[in-house]
């Protein structure tokens, strides 16, 4: 075999490796180009993905994180025994059932004295949440000896007040008055006149705005006129309006009324605050928001012109409320604290009282049902199909259909659950039990597929080794193959459960979308789950609920990351090399 003579001239081979010609160099260059291009595509794709992700995360966190904080008023509340416990028996039921509203009102009135008008005092109490007395009530029930004393308790603020302190209110700026200001009274509607033209600038702003409004109307009128003669009457009335406005802005000295569409102008004088409803260059007419200490004239520099830069109609808090809230902030009564309530209470119509405890518990119960069903059934099905089932047409059909099921849209499982579990078996609506069953249907194919892949990945030599020492097929599978596949199965299961955790559509079908205040305690209680809670909140008009929505998304994402992290950890920890 090795006797090929070396001295026979080797014929020129027909096919030769060519590394030096121009064509070869061109080939190498084009290969390098292709590789660079491919790398660039990859990096570009990654960058775009990372960018989207970053924007998404940033937006969610920006909206959601503030909701984890909450503001309360730390006020001295005199706990009057005749209000809290008129019978004087100090029994928990009576204390719980008492009307705490008067106490709250008294505490507020003590903090901001001198509010007389009904509307103002109504707005003052509106600063507090309807759940504000909860904490006080709990304290009194726990310790009735506090009744009759004055105690400092945090009183929860309403959602709008809370948002105001979170920066969703208005910009506030002020400047010192140049002239001497003379208020005409201490409360009610008063005038404040100044010796210099302190309000000329505000007046000019208003006139400019009138002019721009007039211009817009006149432009619109022109357009309508050009489009045809049939709206002549409307055009005429618009023209009249323009003339009227022009009349107003062309006379710079005229007093003008302020409405809620322009930035508010206020005067802080003698320890009180007056909101201008009408102003000219040297004076305002307005409503007192915070009573003045006296009606004496104020020297230049001791009083201020204040602007709330966001027009009143563009914010959730009125000027009166802004005045109260600012006053309370100055008094140091505002306390910012972590929003534990968000995690300890169920849903509520009041955003500041709403929490995700109900949804979290519902999610936990639902996922528990899913896991208890899916894991054993899925693993056993996978073991049977992979290790024991005869390989014939039927098992092929089963296999194909399992793969098909994994791709069925989840809403279909919801409909199935509605038809089978609710209508046929008559299980309770909105219950974690049914939710769990439906999600189990959804996750089962995923788990079976993952488990089969994990079982397949165990090298056959391990099974042969077990068979070789006289283990039965079943022993070999359950003693060796299955334990070795377990990390893979767990990973698949966790990812399946994470999928179930974020699932919304099928649960809507079985009625887990109801407004439920109580935290569920059993598998058959009405409940909702986290993603559905997010869906519900996202639909509500209150801005505070938008923030809650984002916060709930943060919690959901945190759980998802946690679960996926656990899957990765399991994979890393139990990864084996054979």
């Amino acid at each position, binding site marked *: 075999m090795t006797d090929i003579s070396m001295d026979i001239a080797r014929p020129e081979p027909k096919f030769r490796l060519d590394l030096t010609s121009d064509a070869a160099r061109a080939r190498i260059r084009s290969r390098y180009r292709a590789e660079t291009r491919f790398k660039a595509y990859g990096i570009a794709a990654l960058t775009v993905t990372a960018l989207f992700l970053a924007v998404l995360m940033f937006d969610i966190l920006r909206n959601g994180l503030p909701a984890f904080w909450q503001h309360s008023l730390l006020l001295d509340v005199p706990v009057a025994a005749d209000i809290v416990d008129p019978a004087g028996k100090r029994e928990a039921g009576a204390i719980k059932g008492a009307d705490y509203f008067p106490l709250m009102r008294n505490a507020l009135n003590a903090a901001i004295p001198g509010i007389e008008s009904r509307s103002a005092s109504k707005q003052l109490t509106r600063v507090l949440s309807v759940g504000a007395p909860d904490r006080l009530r709990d304290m009194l029930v726990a310790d009735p000896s506090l009744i009759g004393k004055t105690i400092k308790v945090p009183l929860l603020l309403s959602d709008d007040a809370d948002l105001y302190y979170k920066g969703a209110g208005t910009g506030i700026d002020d400047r010192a008055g140049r002239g001497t200001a003379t208020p005409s009274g201490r409360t009610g509607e008063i005038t404040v006149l100044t010796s210099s033209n302190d309000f000329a600038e505000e007046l000019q702003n208003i006139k400019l705005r009138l002019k721009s409004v007039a211009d817009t109307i006149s432009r619109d009128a022109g357009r309508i006129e050009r489009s045809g003669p049939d709206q002549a009457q409307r055009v005429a009335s618009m023209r009249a309006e323009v003339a009227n406005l022009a009349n107003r802005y062309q006379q710079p000295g005229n007093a003008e009324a302020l409405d809620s569409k322009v930035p508010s102008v206020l005067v802080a004088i003698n320890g009180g605050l007056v909101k201008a409803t009408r102003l000219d260059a040297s004076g305002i007419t307005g409503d007192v928001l915070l009573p003045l200490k006296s009606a004496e004239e104020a020297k230049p520099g001791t009083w201020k012109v204040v602007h709330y830069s966001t027009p009143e109609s563009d914010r959730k808090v009125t000027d009166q409320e802004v005045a109260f809230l600012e006053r309370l902030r100055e008094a140091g009564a505002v306390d910012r604290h972590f929003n534990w309530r968000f995690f300890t209470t169920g849903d509520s119509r009041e955003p500041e009282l709403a929490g995700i405890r109900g949804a979290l518990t519902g999610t936990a119960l639902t996922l528990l049902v899913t896991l208890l069903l899916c894991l054993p059934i899925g693993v056993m099905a996978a073991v049977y199909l992979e290790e024991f089932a005869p390989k014939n047409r039927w098992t092929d059909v089963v296999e194909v259909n399992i793969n098909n099921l994994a791709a069925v849209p989840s809403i279909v499982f919801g409909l199935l659950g509605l038809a089978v579990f609710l209508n046929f078996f008559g299980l309770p609506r909105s219950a974690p039990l049914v939710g769990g069953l439906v999600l189990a249907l959804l996750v089962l194919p995923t788990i079976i597929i993952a488990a089969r892949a994990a079982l397949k990945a165990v090298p056959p030599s*391990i099974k042969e080794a077990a068979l070789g020492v*006289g283990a039965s097929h079943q022993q070999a599978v359950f003693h060796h193959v299955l334990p070795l596949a377990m990390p893979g199965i767990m990973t698949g299961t966790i990812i399946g459960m994470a999928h179930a955790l974020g699932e919304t559509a099928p649960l809507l079908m079985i009625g887990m979308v109801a407004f439920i205040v109580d935290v569920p305690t059993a598998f058959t209680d009405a409940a909702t789950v986290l993603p559905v809670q997010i869906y519900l909140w996202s639909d509500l008009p209150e801005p505070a609920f938008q923030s809650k929505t984002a916060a709930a998304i943060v919690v959901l994402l945190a759980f998802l990351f946690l679960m996926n992290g656990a899957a990765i950890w399991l994979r890393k920890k139990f990864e084996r090399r054979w």
Partner: protein
Amino acid sequence: MDMSTVEHAMLTPSATSAPASGTKVTARACNVYYGEKHALKDVSVDIPERSITAFIGPSGCGKSTFLRCINRMNDTIASCRVTGKIEIDGQDIYDPALDVVQLRARVGMVFQKPNPFPKSIYENVAYGPRIHGIAKSKSDLDEVVISSLEKAGLLKEVKDRLNDSGTGLSGGQQQRLCIARAIAVSPEVILMDEPCSALDPIATAKVEELMDELKANYTIIIVTHSMQQAARVSQRTAFFHLGNLVEVGDTRQIFTNPKEQRTQDYITGRFG
């Protein structure tokens, strides 16, 4: 023609024959099919007790296939079909009444690639005895494990780390661990499919030494590609070619004076 050769070889034990006290495994007209493929053709052979029999032959000739027939490992291959008769101690192992799991406990196997369980060394050896209820107590089990490791010549190297993973051992140590695992259930026959193919010469020598000791108590059948190994360790040698058993006889006779031209060609390296 094969049949006649085999019968002839079997019926005329040479003077140098090992003291075969009796026949342990008997195969008659054994055929194996993988689906349509006829992998083993009409093999009949007797394998003597308490000795080493080597199967040699070119790659793909059916040595492993035949070996796996003896502990019915071929049952695990769905497409595989076996006809003919194989007896151990006169008992038909393809008898439907026979429990295949017990058969595999009686006929141990060591595979070409070391395949310890990814568990501790102790657990590797203890697994067989445990599922067969060989050891009644923990101390009995310890004894079985220690003596199996001792017999496999591994005890000295691992006695301080019985709880370490079996997969952490070197290739040669792993193969001896697999041998220890196989003998822990005290089988009567040990099948070894190229047990040294992944080992260096020193580990090979250890395993060969071990086989030599084990043959006093066990019937050993070994598949090997190394003619030298077959010559060194075995008492009898069977040569397979293209699914046929070409020749079987005393090792010395096969290597010095083969009756078949094909055997001659193979052992002198003219093909294969």
